[in-house]
């Protein structure tokens, strides 16, 4: 199979549209006939990454590559960067303000979930420049 490549822009601060990219990707994965648990893992990873870009980074871009044996998600933003990645990875750690919390986000579970559901997680971040999160989900 030729690799399938998808690319989605993610608007910053748009809580209504947030999740649209993940939703579209999930539909494509279903059409490709991938196993349900693989689709679910990829969808959750992408959704958490997408929400983080909307909330913390004023948007960005999500690139997806699907090959025979894995799905690679690449979430790129030009936001503020993450000062302390180890801290950000802790369950319950969040810098989200009251407005974000009132929408149901800010539990500090997003990055831990991305780690939980992916087989590989890399975070490349620089203060004032932006953050790139790469996740790989194995198929089979």
């Amino acid at each position: 199979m030729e690799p399938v490549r998808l690319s989605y822009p993610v608007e910053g601060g748009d809580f209504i549209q947030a999740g649209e990219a993940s939703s579209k990707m999930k539909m494509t994965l279903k059409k490709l006939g991938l196993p349900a648990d693989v689709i679910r893992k990829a969808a959750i990873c992408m959704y958490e990454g997408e929400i983080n870009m909307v909330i913390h980074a004023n948007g960005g871009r999500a690139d997806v590559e699907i090959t025979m044996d894995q799905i690679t998600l690449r979430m790129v933003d030009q936001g503020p960067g993450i000062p302390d990645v180890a801290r950000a990875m802790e369950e319950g750690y969040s810098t989200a303000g009251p407005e974000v919390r009132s929408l149901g986000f800010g539990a500090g579970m997003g990055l831990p979930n991305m780690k939980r559901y992916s087989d590989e997680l890399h975070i490349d971040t620089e203060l004032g420049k932006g953050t790139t999160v790469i996740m790989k989900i194995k198929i089979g």
Partner: protein
Amino acid sequence: MRLSEVKEILSAQVLCGEDRMEEEVACACGSDFLSDVLAYVHEQNLLLTGMVNPQVIRTVEMTDIKCVVFVRGKRPGEDIIRMARERGIVVMASPERLYTACGLLYSKGLRGN
């Protein structure tokens, strides 16, 4: 537990998916934090929440949850119901508070995971 039983136990109103009341749910989760819901997805297929916004439907969509019950008498808007309908998600609204709603279902045998 059958969705029709969930409806009855929670004195809920079905806002979409009325024709699917014979379907079963194996377990449930209750939270207002969406990432909390995303953390424990395995077999849970019912969500109880007091949070009402489109991201609830997104969360349910990503995790393949079958049914969402909005508690505390909260009524989602038409846009949210439409999103759910498009995605084949059953939506109910119950007057019970979150704790009580979870307790009622749990005491009738619907467990967490």
